[in-house]
């Protein structure tokens, strides 16, 4: 290539284009002007494409000319420098040069007029340091594309490295009418331009460097040529014919290289880089002089200006200041345009500042730029297609844009439109085509952004949902695990429940053949044990601690039972010789045992039915019929159990009497068995009730309280039975060697029996009470309750209980004395037993009082009349119970006092320990008793007070209330006497000690 001579490159052509009046001469008549400093400089933070810069300065900061006042905010961003020295007056929203006429954040600089430069640090060694450093330096100097788009130069240069560059094109075409800023720049700063191009060429290393310049700038061309020749540069000059829009990047590339930038791609993709002349000069100033981009060449033109000219203006200078400088005539000014007449936009206000991309201010008169003619219908002339430099189909795009069919518009390459306005310019119907395209483009962009945002929202929503689902699933899993644990327990119980009564069923057909029965019992017990052990193993595997504990207890229980049964079985052969005797003796009780068998079967049957009904009730908690049925069954069951117990008592009595002499052990074992059976039944009942409670809790049934009470009672019963069971077991081994003391054993038997009777009677009372409670809860009238068999049954049961207790009290006092004489060793034992029993009686009596009080309270709560309460059996019962308690306590203090002097001194030590043990507890009991009685007294007093108050309030009921008061006073008196007695007994006891 003959550099220097062949400076003009080949020129191709592009499709379309127009030839509007150039109007460039006006602004070239005056030399480059330099306006004075304005009062303030407005520096928008977003002068470039990409993220707005971040301010580095605060309001009030003093800055020097060229000092960095804002830095880049991300990759696609730029720096900003103070165009002159001064003070930062504000950082605020100001109107900016934008088609929208909106405000943006700006740094306001008040110049001090000194123009004091900051220390300039030129990059003199740019040829030696790495290109990346030079690019970074350019970025720090705030250099962006000055052609119009404002694309940060270092980003563009970096992008150019993607492909080996064939062409480095310098855009000096400046095709838009009126604008001569680049022309003037080339004329003024030819050398700087060439030097700038050389620096850039060093950075991009392109094969060809071509300056594309329109042929309407002969002066600039000449200046360039002379400099290039002088420098013997290999930079070529391509003079292109004047045609709008040859200054468009893609058009110029096509003009100079003949290559078209493919749709959706960048010039760099085809190995071409394009830079504006203004950028090249800015690069030179930055690299060789160290001056950041703080000023630019701008054309001031238009008919409304008396002195249209090009000016080198500091960035941030308000347009108004420039108009003033160019002597604008406000009368003539009709439209103020930023940019050229083709691609510029109208400014609403002249206060907006010049920015890095402002190449022209066009102050046009009305004549010069008349308001756009009204839009008319498209006549499909096709001139727009002829004019389009991007080879698009403007007409089609118009249809799609008008009908908002943006997708189709996109398919017709709407985004390749450079918005040059050539189509609008040629349109005979004055259709503002470009505006339609701009609208469509921004609509599509908005839709895309909305899409991105909605995708993000969706993603976040789904992530949240997934998280919530996971949380819920975790909770559910935990809940299920818990439920499984409890249901496992429940099934364990279910398994255990039918297993427990099984011995009853097995025991029901009690035959005279004991060994057979025992064997069956042992077999059943063993299978149960096996089952329990399996459950235990499972529980251990599943690590259910509670279950393991309960199961282990059950297992040991079971093992004990089996052991005792086996012991019994072992003793049977030895008893065999005596059997005939026993058999003859048992001949008479045989029918009794038959009866007993039948009764037990009845009990089992009724129990099963009851269970079934209760299950149904749990499923349908509101079924009144079922409840009634259940209560009926319960009474049946109770009756049957009563008969069973009575019968077994009889058998026991007969067997004990018949076998007493020969084999007292047998009766004991029988007793033991019965006790065990009872205990098993009680335990099963407890379990059943627990299960029912659990179920009730699950379904939130209203019967929870009733069931809880049931549970408590059942547990109590079971405890008592077990206690009873433990006693004979303790005495049994003792009884075997001590055959000489059958009386003791018999006594123990009797006590035991009575205890059982007591327990049964108590259970009966409790059941009756519960039923009454249930009826009350169901909102039955008192009358109805009274009509039902329950109260009478309750009374019966209570009577029986009282009778039994009296029996027991009488018996315990006599045999203990008798036994004291016959078997001193046993006395302590029996004394202890008696003390225990008394304690139990006391507790029962106390419980009775409590219950009666509670019931009375309940009736009161239900706002029953006092008279009704009076009519109900409760107060009477309360008094009865209190009396009983008093009697019991008196009893207790009596035997506690008597044995000590009666017993021989030798036994004293032994006795005293036992007594003291026995007495410590009664004492404590007494203390609580006293406390309770005091409370009762206080309550009674309060009641009397209340009644008196009521008497005052309602004199018409005076009589009835007075009656009530009388009753209450009586109650108070009885409570007080009781209290006195209690205190007395307490002091007695303390004295005894």
């Amino acid at each position, binding site marked *: 290539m003959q550099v220097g001579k062949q400076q003009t490159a080949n020129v191709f052509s592009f499709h379309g284009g127009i030839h509007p009046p150039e109007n460039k001469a006006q602004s070239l008549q005056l030399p480059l002007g330099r306006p004075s400093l304005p009062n303030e400089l407005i520096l928008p933070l*977003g002068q470039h494409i990409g993220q707005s810069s971040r301010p580095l300065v605060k309001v009030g900061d003093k800055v020097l000319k060229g000092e960095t006042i804002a830095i880049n905010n991300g990759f696609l961003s730029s720096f900003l420098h103070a165009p002159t020295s001064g003070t930062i007056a504000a950082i605020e929203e100001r109107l*900016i040069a*934008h*088609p*929208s006429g*909106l*405000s*943006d954040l700006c740094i306001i600089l008040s110049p001090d007029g000194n123009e004091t430069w900051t220390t300039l640090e030129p990059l003199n060694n740019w040829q030696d340091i790495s290109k990346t450093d030079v690019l970074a330096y350019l970025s720090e100097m705030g250099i962006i594309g000055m052609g119009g788009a404002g694309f940060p130069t270092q980003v563009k240069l970096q992008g150019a490295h993607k492909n080996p560059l064939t062409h480095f094109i310098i855009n000096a075409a400046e095709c838009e009418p009126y604008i001569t800023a680049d022309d003037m720049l080339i004329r003024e700063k030819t050398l700087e331009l060439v030097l700038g191009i050389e620096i850039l060429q060093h950075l991009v290393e392109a094969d060809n460097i071509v300056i594309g310049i329109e042929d309407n700038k002969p002066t600039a061309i000449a200046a360039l040529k002379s400099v290039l020749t002088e420098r013997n540069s290999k930079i070529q000059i391509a003079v292109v014919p004047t045609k709008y829009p040859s200054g468009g990047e893609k058009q110029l590339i096509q003009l100079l290289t003949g290559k078209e930038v493919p749709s959706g791609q960048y010039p760099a993709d085809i190995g071409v880089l394009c830079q504006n002349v203004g950028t090249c000069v800015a690069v030179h100033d930055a690299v060789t002089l160290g001056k950041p981009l703080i000023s630019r060449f701008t054309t001031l033109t238009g008919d409304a200006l008396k002195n249209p000219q090009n000016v080198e203006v500091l960035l941030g200078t308000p347009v108004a200041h420039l108009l003033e400088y160019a002597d604008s005539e406000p009368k003539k000014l009709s439209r103020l345009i930023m940019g050229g007449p083709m691609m510029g936009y109208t400014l609403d206000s002249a206060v907006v500042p010049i920015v890095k991309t402002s190449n022209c201010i066009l102050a046009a008169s009305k004549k010069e730029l008349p308001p756009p003619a*009204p*839009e*008319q*219908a498209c006549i499909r002339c096709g001139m727009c297609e002829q004019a389009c430099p991007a080879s698009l189909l403007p007409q089609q795009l118009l249809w799609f844009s*008008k009908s*908002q069919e943006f997708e189709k518009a996109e398919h017709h390459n709407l985004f390749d439109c450079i918005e040059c306005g050539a189509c609008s310019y040629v349109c005979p119907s004055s259709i*503002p085509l470009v*505006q*339609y395209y*701009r*609208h469509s*483009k*921004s*609509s599509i*962009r*908005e839709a895309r952004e*909305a899409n991105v*945002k*909605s*995708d*993000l*929202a*969706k993603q*976040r*929503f789904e*992530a*949240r*949902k997934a998280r919530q689902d996971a949380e819920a699933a975790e909770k559910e899993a935990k809940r299920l695990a818990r439920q499984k644990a409890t249901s496992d327990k429940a099934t364990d119980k279910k398994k255990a429940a039918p297993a427990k009564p099984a011995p009853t069923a097995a025991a029901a057909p009690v035959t005279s053949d004991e060994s057979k029965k025992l064997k069956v019992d042992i077999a059943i017990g063993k299978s149960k044990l096996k089952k329990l052990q399996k459950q235990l193993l499972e529980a251990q595997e599943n690590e259910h601690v509670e279950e393991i504990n309960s199961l282990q207890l059950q297992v040991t229980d079971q093992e004990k039972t089996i052991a005792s049964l086996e012991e019994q079985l072992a003793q049977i052969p030895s008893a065999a010789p005596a059997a005939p005797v026993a058999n003859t003796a048992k001949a008479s009780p045989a029918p009794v045992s038959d009866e007993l068998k039948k009764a037990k079967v009845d009990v089992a049957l009724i129990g099963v039915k009851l269970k079934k009904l209760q299950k149904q009730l749990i499923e349908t908690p509101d079924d009144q019929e079922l409840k009634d049925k259940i209560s009926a069954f319960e009474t049946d069951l109770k009756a049957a159990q009563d008969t069973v117990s009575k019968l077994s008592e009889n058998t026991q009595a007969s067997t004990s009497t018949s076998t007493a002499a020969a084999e007292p052990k047998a009766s004991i074992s029988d007793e033991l068995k019965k006790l065990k059976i009872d205990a098993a039944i009680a335990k099963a009942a407890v379990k059943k009730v627990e299960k029912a409670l659990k179920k009730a809790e699950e379904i939130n049934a209203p019967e929870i309280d009733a069931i809880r009470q049931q549970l408590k009672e059942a547990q109590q019963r079971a405890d008592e039975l077990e206690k009873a069971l433990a006693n004979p077991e303790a005495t049994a081994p003792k009884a075997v060697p001590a055959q000489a003391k059958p009386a003791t054993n018999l006594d123990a038997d009797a006590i035991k029996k009575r205890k059982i009777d007591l327990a049964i009677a108590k259970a009966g009372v409790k059941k009756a009470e519960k039923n009454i409670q249930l009826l009350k809860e169901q909102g039955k009238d008192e009358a109805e309750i009274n009509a039902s068999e329950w109260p009478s049954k309750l009374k019966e049961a209570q009577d029986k209980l009282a009778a039994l207790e009296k029996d027991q009290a009488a018996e315990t006092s006599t045999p203990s004395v008798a036994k004291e004489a016959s078997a001193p060793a046993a006395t302590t034992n029996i004394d202890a037993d008696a003390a225990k029993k008394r304690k139990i009686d006391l507790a029962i009596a106390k419980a009775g009082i409590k219950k009666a009080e509670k019931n009375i309270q309940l009736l009161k709560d239900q706002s029953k009349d006092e008279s009704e309460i009076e009519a109900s059996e409760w107060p009477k019962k309360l008094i009865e119970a209190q009396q009983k308690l008093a009697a019991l306590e008196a009893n207790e203090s009596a035997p506690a006092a008597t044995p000590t002097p009666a017993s021989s001194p030798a036994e004293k030590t032994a006795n005293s320990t036992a007594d003291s043990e026995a007495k410590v507890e009664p004492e404590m009991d007494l203390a609580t008793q006293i406390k309770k009685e005091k409370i009762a007294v206080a309550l009674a007093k309060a009641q009397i007070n209340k009644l008196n108050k009521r008497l005052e309030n309602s004199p018409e009921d005076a009589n009835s209330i007075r009656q009530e008061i009388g009753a209450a006073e009586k109650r108070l008196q009885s409570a007080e006497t009781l209290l006195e007695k209690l205190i007395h007994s307490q002091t007695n006891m303390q004295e005894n000690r």
Partner: protein
Amino acid sequence: MFTVLLAIGILVLLSLIFGAILGYANVRFHVEGDPIVDQIDALLPQTQCGQCGHPGCRPYAEAIANGEAINHCPPGGQVTIQALADLLDVEAVPLDGDHGTENAKRVAVIREDECIGCTKCIQACPVDAILGAAKQMHTVIADECTGCDLCVEPCPVDCIDMVEVGVTAKTWSWDKPQGIAATSLNIIATDRQAEVTH
């Protein structure tokens, strides 16, 4: 007779072959779920505001696929209705006012000095756009906020405002030209004068 049998045989053979191909294609190119739901869901604005009466945009998309009206989405507005109408080939109907009115885009802003840190709004936000912890001040990530309003109701101290997102120079878009009808009346100069004298 042989020809007839041959023809039948060939047809049977062909039907078996094509049946096998179709059967294979059915398995090989099986589409999970209803693709129309995805398409509808893509058109909905994903504010997850629940104004349509469904707990989120996808449930509404499913409801539309099952025949529910397409005009129950106030955040999407007429544009969404139009897009749905185009997709489903049904008539575009105006927005159903019962479900709300089409508002300008808004974001929730917490008046931070009034926030008591109850986390109720955090739980309400369908897109996790609110940051904060118990007894700590909360704040809205404006970029993630869909302006669904769901956080306003649960706030016990009413410290959440729905603030319209103003147009900035970056989000501004060109208006659509007014078109022919608005301006074509005054084309003839004499008409214009006549109007002035009126």
